[in-house]
């Protein structure tokens, strides 16, 4: 590190702290007593850090159950998306059939349709088949992904076609080639699709708000929002809830940053 780099580091440090400030503040307030939060000027650091707010969250809402619900639903969506998208991407990259182009456009066209524009009929459907307050109601509508299919297809197209040719000469069926060659070779991009599916499902709010009424079927995001609508708004409690809910996604960000970046930039840079 040279002296010349110091201004750069100073700017980077300031920028990082400003951007991460709301999150750091939430962490700090989650250890603060309500009486300290009420002092002026607004405090930054807990005077006597305690886990009281976390205990308070556990007493107020069934946060463990919410976390379980969110993990079950998000994992189910990830598994569903990996299966549906990899099968579809395989057809769009290795199989030759008439109408392939047209069907690919059908897939891409779903990217233009905002979920909110179809949410009313979807709600009516889910209610009429008795899927309100169920895991399948929360998960099944999101188990197909055009974006994931698109990402996987791009990756599958990078796999040398000679592999497919020689597999066929060896008498391998197309399904066997898919499982023994294509999927193992595409692990990184499958990781991208998985992380995306998990994050976007775990962070959902509108849909779970609509289709869950029983307390025990709520997911994390809708669950912590209840803390905001308690009779008295206790910010220490809310921030403890916020941290408990955000930790899994932040851990995923740290572990899977490379995968996330790959997904985000696929649309923007490569076109």
């Amino acid at each position, binding site marked *: 590190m040279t002296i010349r780099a110091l201004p750069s580091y100073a700017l*980077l440090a300031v920028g990082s702290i400003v951007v991460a400030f709301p999150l750091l*503040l939430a962490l700090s307030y989650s250890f603060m007593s309500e009486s300290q939060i009420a002092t002026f000027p607004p405090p930054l650091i807990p005077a006597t850090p305690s886990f009281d707010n976390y205990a308070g969250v556990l007493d107020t809402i069934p946060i463990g159950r919410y976390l379980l619900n969110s993990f079950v639903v998000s994992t189910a969506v990830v598994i569903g998306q990996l299966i549906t998208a990899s099968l579809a991407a395989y057809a769009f990259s290795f*199989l030759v059939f008439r109408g392939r182009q047209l069907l690919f456009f059908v897939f891409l066209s779903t990217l233009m349709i905002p979920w909110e524009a179809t949410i009313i009929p979807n709600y*009516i459907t889910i209610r009429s088949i008795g899927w309100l307050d169920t895991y399948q109601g929360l998960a099944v509508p999101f188990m197909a992904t055009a974006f994931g299919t698109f990402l996987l297809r791009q990756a599958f197209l990078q796999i040398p076609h000679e592999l497919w040719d020689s597999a066929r000469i060896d008498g391998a069926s197309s399904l066997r080639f898919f499982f023994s060659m294509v999927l193992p070779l595409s692990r990184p991009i499958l990781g991208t699709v998985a992380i995306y599916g998990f994050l976007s499902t*775990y962070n959902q709010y509108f849909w779970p708000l609509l289709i869950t009424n029983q307390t025990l079927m709520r997911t994390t995001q809708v669950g912590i929002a209840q803390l905001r609508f308690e009779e008295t708004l206790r910010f220490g409690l809310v921030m403890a809830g916020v941290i408990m809910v955000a930790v899994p996604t932040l851990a995923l960000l740290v572990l899977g*940053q490379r995968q996330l970046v790959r997904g985000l930039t696929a649309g923007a840079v490569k076109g």
Partner: protein
Amino acid sequence: MRWNARDSRQLGIGLAYLAPSLILFAAFVFVPLAQSIYLSFFNTRATGAITTFAGLDHYLELLTSPAFRTGLLATALFALYTVPLGIALGLVLAVLLNQRLRGINVFRTMMSSTIAISAAVGALIWLLLLNPSLGLLNYILSLVGVRGPEWLIQPATAIIAVSLTTIWLTLGTNIIVLLAGLQGVPEEIYEAARLDGARGLRMFTRITVPMVSPSLFFLLVVDTIAVLQAFTQIHLLTRGGPVDATRVLVYSIYQDAFQNFQFGYASAQAVILLVLVMALTLIQFRFVERRVHYQ
């Protein structure tokens, strides 16, 4: 180009692989889409069951409704406050992050951290920051001699408060996309510009901004679509209020469908949302196509 038995067999195999996705898309995207459009021409009971044909009534009512016009205006303001500022901020931070320094990845992770943060979590944290008596925002403003408003109580500031929250939430995505764009700019271009005497701000406006314009345009479209779909932060911060100041299109759909149970009227608004998003996406597809053509 006759169709023969081999074509049918190949199509059958292809469809077998596509079937899981196609069935789900049909059930949860295409059929509901048609139902949304269909519902928008009908009146319904509170259960959602269709009663009478309404023709274009819902659309005509929307055209003349002051509440709907206020909502569209709120949506436009929301986009105007959120998208340009969010992208500009993202670009400045991405330029800062686009340096070859030891430990740069720590800063990159910190600055892009909001990508993992849900709208609900973000909104609840900003509820604290924006609080007139307990929040830090007004305290910081008071340090520079500005009397901070009651953000969520006044119509003019409520939409700004929701926009600030949204800018923060989208910052992570903007930074990652723009950083990738910046890393795609060949070093020789900067060197050539430097030889020509370009420095600092001039380098930024003449070289950096044009070179990342594809990423900027991508974000302009994607962020605008995201703003059109934003629901959570409004539900948690303002519930559409005060006096409908933040009752944006999606929130209006939510209230008319799930609180007033006017599914037909809400569906007409859903169709308008659909048209807006489709138009934006098509613009983006066309642009990308043209850019690829030029390269």
